[in-house]
């Protein structure tokens, strides 16, 4: 047992080294490598841009955190609206459905453009002009449409007998949702929710289009100043460092859910 585990680790290690070694060798022996190296891997530009770019990432972090909280709330409201039965609530269900369809159909960049340039363009007194505000609003609207679908799948995955049990004890529809259905639904959708938030994290760079100076806009500025692409590499690296741990966390959570499921826990 022990030796075979050791053996497969060794094989994995060797094949990894060989594979990436080959990729590296091909890259640096490409005919135009010296040019590429100068424009993407320039040490001086690197040192100049890191102090600019890393603080600019703080804007993305703020954007992400504020939008995430708003998304979690708005999406839950939308999902609950769509799950409520009864003919009286049909208009609300319809509205929530149309919302989810529209905001998933239109590319996010367009929503950001339309809101970020369109609404301030109306010049209504008292309406905010800060692009950061519209960045938060646009990301919230777009992502809530996706996240509400995730919640809804979670709600539907809770067996109807759970609601029946709650209602039979005299709980109202809303109480059954609040205390019995939603807690189980949310637990089940945590991994897919985190997946959506990995997407959101990266999509925060889209708001550079309406003039929010965040990490991507800052690296464009630095790139233009130095006439060199190294700042983009810095930006890519920042995202790698932030996103990979989150991606691993999602994997761990999914694996844990699977184990629970296989262990027969409901």
């Amino acid at each position, binding site marked *: 047992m022990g030796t075979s585990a050791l053996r497969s680790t060794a094989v994995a290690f060797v094949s990894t080294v060989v594979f990436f070694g080959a990729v590296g060798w091909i890259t640096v022996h490409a005919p135009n490598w010296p040019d590429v190296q100068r424009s993407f891997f320039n040490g001086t530009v690197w040192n100049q841009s890191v102090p600019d770019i890393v603080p600019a990432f703080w804007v993305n972090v703020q954007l992400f955190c504020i939008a995430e909280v708003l998304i979690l709330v708005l999406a839950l409201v939308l999902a609950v609206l769509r799950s409520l039965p009864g003919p009286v609530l049909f208009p609300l269900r319809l509205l929530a459905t149309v919302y989810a369809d529209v905001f998933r159909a239109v590319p996010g960049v367009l929503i950001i453009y339309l809101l970020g340039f369109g609404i301030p363009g109306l010049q209504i007194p008292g309406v905010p002009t800060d692009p950061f505000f519209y960045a938060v609003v646009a990301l919230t609207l777009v992502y809530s449409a996706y996240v509400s679908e995730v919640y809804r799948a979670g709600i539907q995955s809770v067996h109807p007998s*759970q609601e*029946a049990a*709650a209602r039979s*004890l005299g709980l109202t529809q809303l109480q059954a949702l609040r205390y019995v259905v939603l807690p189980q639904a949310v637990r089940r959708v945590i991994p897919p929710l985190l997946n959506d938030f990995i997407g959101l994290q990266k999509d925060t760079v889209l708001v550079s289009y309406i003039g929010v100076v965040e990490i991507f806009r800052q690296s464009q500025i630095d790139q233009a100043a130095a006439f060199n692409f190294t700042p983009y590499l810095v930006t890519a690296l920042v995202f790698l460092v932030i996103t990979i741990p989150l991606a691993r966390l999602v994997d761990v959570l999914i694996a844990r859910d699977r184990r629970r499921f296989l262990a027969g826990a409901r």
Partner: protein
Amino acid sequence: MNVPPRGEPAATHATPSLQPAGRTEPALRVEGVWKSFGQARVLRGIDLELAEHDVVCLIGASGSGKSTLLRCINLLEPVDAGRIVLQGEEITAPGADVNRVRRRLGIVFQSFNLFPHMSVLSNVTLAPRKVLRLSRRDAEERATALLGRFGLADKRDDFPDRLSGGQQQRVAIVRALAMEPDLLLLDEITSALDPELVAEVLNVIRELARGGMTMLIATHEMGFARDIATRVCFLDSGVILEQGPPAEIFGHPREARTRQFLQRIVEAGRL
């Protein structure tokens, strides 16, 4: 709708019907209840009456409509026609407060349906706290007493998936009892259990019967029905074909279909 007899004093509470003097209303009265699912006519004119402290067992083949009848009484399914009257109050009336009715009716299902994300204690205290608005302390006191009475005192902080089937079903019974219902509906509560766990659950029901709980029990356990029932109802394709004291139904069934059904049960070794 019942009209109060002439000369009756007006009731102070808002029940739609009044009790004639000197006669107590039955705990439950089912009158001509019909229920279809699409083309399938599952209940075809059910009439049934339970007095206080009655223990009525519903027997009948799979698909005869036992569960559907219990779900209709608990208003989990709307009836197509007929009335259901609980202690003089028509609960199938259009304006009836469904949640208030359900507080007075406990139901326990074949599949337990405990809330898996809550401890045993929270399962039992949820409805008393949220529906009856008991304080956490009062609800926990009530729950602890009930759990203790049914041998579950040491399970209060466990989650349902750590319990055996028999223990889960007893928790489900305690959860229903914590609402102090006037009537308990039990739907084949031992069918999902391993044979060696059936007795512990049936003993709980026996104790409840001794305590005077009014119960309507759908069951395949004929020995148990014979033991415990004040009356047995044989349900056949959506009608109550025959009812009477257990000795009569099991000893001298009048209807051929009842005899056939019991014959099959005997052959299957369940009586």
